[in-house]
């Protein structure tokens, strides 16, 4: 499945890592199956499920009608019966079609009637790919607001594999936001054996002492770039926290980094108003106000639908230079 070059180096792309995770979980547990649009013979719009149908057959790699409500709803029903469905949204932009099913049915079933929905709803999200308003969205904040769901958003290939495996094994519904910009751009070697990453735990992506960046998904890489540049140009040591899980948030990790650096920048690709940065800022305010030496700042997308043309998209989305400007403001505070 992996390309010849990657096989030679032992490195696996973010996309291949997800496929490996799916493959291993389907091998491990006969109750795991995939459903989605064009995921079977075609292998999915981004080829994440390529090859699965050859190994597991049509009954476990199901091509569905264009029906996000049916995909998620049927996933819930199958989950009630003890299956472990993995539902693909062709683009996460389309998960909004299943918003009712996810927020009203799936997220509440355990609480209301004691019936869990152990299922995964996964798919590509995010911009920087000239995808325009409907193939670039970051709709996580709409669901972070829904108790009963779990949400993960990996930034690295290892986490992509470890988290998809944990998501499939979780007893509740996990929304798995893949980042399409990262699919083929990041790669690394995979740990041996049955590698999982716990849901609910953030990761220190870069140690630092002066300023903390809290981020997730594609902007992790921009944050790391900015951190390196700050170190070189300004001699400022920047810590970078990769949240990995957005619901439930890892309060401990957030608190630990605030206590360490006393200056916090939150970076996300999602739009600004009502985005996750607001929630994280409020938590820091409540938990660790006395540890702060500067106001919590945020770098996010502008509050507009994501435009298509490169100069427009580049202007709207957070860039490394934006992060640099914010870091310098924090350092000078």
């Amino acid at each position, binding site marked *: 499945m992996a390309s010849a070059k990657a096989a030679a180096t032992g490195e696996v792309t973010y996309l291949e890592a997800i496929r490996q995770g799916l493959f291993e979980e389907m091998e491990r547990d006969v109750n795991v199956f995939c459903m989605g649009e064009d995921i079977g013979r075609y292998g999915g719009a981004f080829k994440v499920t390529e090859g699965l149908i050859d190994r597991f057959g049509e*009954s476990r790699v199901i091509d569905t*009608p264009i029906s996000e409500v*049916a995909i998620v*709803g049927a996933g*819930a029903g199958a989950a009630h019966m003890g299956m472990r469905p993995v539902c693909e949204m062709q683009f996460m932009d389309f998960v909004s079609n299943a918003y009712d099913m996810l927020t009203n049915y799936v997220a*509440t079933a355990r609480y209301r009637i004691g*019936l869990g929905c152990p299922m995964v709803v996964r798919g590509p999200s995010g911009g920087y790919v000239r995808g325009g308003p409907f193939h670039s969205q970051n709709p996580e904040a709409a669901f972070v607001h829904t108790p009963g769901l779990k949400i993960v958003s990996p930034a690295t290939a290892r986490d992509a594999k470890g988290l998809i495996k944990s998501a499939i094994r979780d007893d509740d519904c996990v929304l798995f936001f893949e980042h399409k910009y990262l699919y083929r751009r990041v790669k690394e070697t995979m740990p041996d054996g049955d590698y999982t990453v716990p849901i609910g735990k953030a990761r220190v992506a870069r140690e630092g002492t002066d300023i903390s960046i809290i981020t997730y998904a594609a902007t992790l890489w921009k944050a790391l770039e900015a951190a390196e540049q700050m170190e070189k140009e300004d001699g400022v040591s920047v810590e970078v926290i990769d949240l990995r899980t957005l619901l439930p948030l890892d309060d401990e990790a957030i608190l630990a980094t605030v206590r360490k650096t006393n200056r916090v920048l939150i970076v996300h690709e999602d739009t600004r108003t009502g985005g996750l940065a607001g929630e994280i800022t409020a938590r820091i305010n409540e938990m660790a106000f006395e540890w702060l030496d500067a106001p919590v700042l945020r770098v996010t997308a502008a509050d507009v639908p994501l435009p298509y043309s490169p100069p427009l998209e580049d202007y709207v989305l957070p860039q490394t230079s934006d992060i640099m400007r914010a870091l310098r403001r924090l350092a000078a505070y």
Partner: protein
Amino acid sequence: MSPTRAPARERHRTAARADHASPSAALTREQKLELYYYMRLTRSLEERLVNLYRQTKVIGGLFRSLGQEADAVGAAFALDKSRNDILSPLIRNLGAMLVRGATPVEVIRQYMAKGDSPTKGKELNIHFGSVERGFIGQISHLGDMVPVMAGVTLTFKMRGEDRVGLVFVGDGATSTGAFHEGINFAAVQRCPLVVVVENNGYAYSTPVTKQTAAKQFIDKAAGYGVAGERADGNDVLAVYDVVKRAVERARRGDGVTLVELVTYRRKGHAEHDNQSYVPAGEIDRWAAENDPLDRYVHVLRDEFGATDAELAAIDQRVQREIDGATDVAEQSPMPEPLEALRGVYGDIEMIPPVWYREEVKSAVTEHERAEGWGTYNG
């Protein structure tokens, strides 16, 4: 499919049943009396709930299925308990839940928001379920249970189990996207699913004529490539026959059936609804000419030789059970407030209380009946 014409009882008599090959011909005398028991239990239990509602012991709205007991009971009776076929009831299908083993005490505890109710006070009325007993609780968003039941029955198919699912929707739910997506998906996958459209004439205050331009709901079956069958929803044996045929079709691998059961909603959407939108005389006509319990009593007496004493004994049993259940439910405790924070996730026992509630066990000392519930009489 005008709901305003109550068909004369005689016209509904046993046309299907005259055929001895019809599934109901195989029902034993005991089973036929059981159908009566569940219909009577449904009606009497709801009447008891009305009493409790008027005593302000019911929290929230009360939903009746008066005049629709036959379609709920007859349809659920066509499923196989021993195989644990699964059904998803709607708000007028208390009878279907009772057939599958929901108990009066559970129902009364639910309506009184008790701590030991099936949902521990987290959900309303008959929104509860038991996969072990074969019913999955509904949500208020109409049509959503169709895709969910498509997934339940997809699982039966994937595992090679000879089980069947049945989902109730009302005439109103057929207008939702979820209904369409769910039945289409189930049809394409040839899921062993029976979709019952319980056409009771009204969705809240909206008559069927404002819900669809189709002449009858089974006309939609052709569009989905599934079988469609329609029956008199107030004739419990006709309901049993049509649903049983659909169940067997599903069980032998022939996929989805859209069943339309024509009935009539004699009470409002909920107890507060004064039905000002219903043409004068319509409700009385259905009550007088087409009550499913009256009709079935005639059938039991005239065609199956049931005696008055037999039926009275069933009525007394029902009354005893409801009295006992009421006593038990009234003694049940209200939930502990902190229960509100439990059960959101499988692996997180309790959502932590916010800081200003950390040492607080109950937010207020006395709970009030919410204003606006059951008070509308405009």
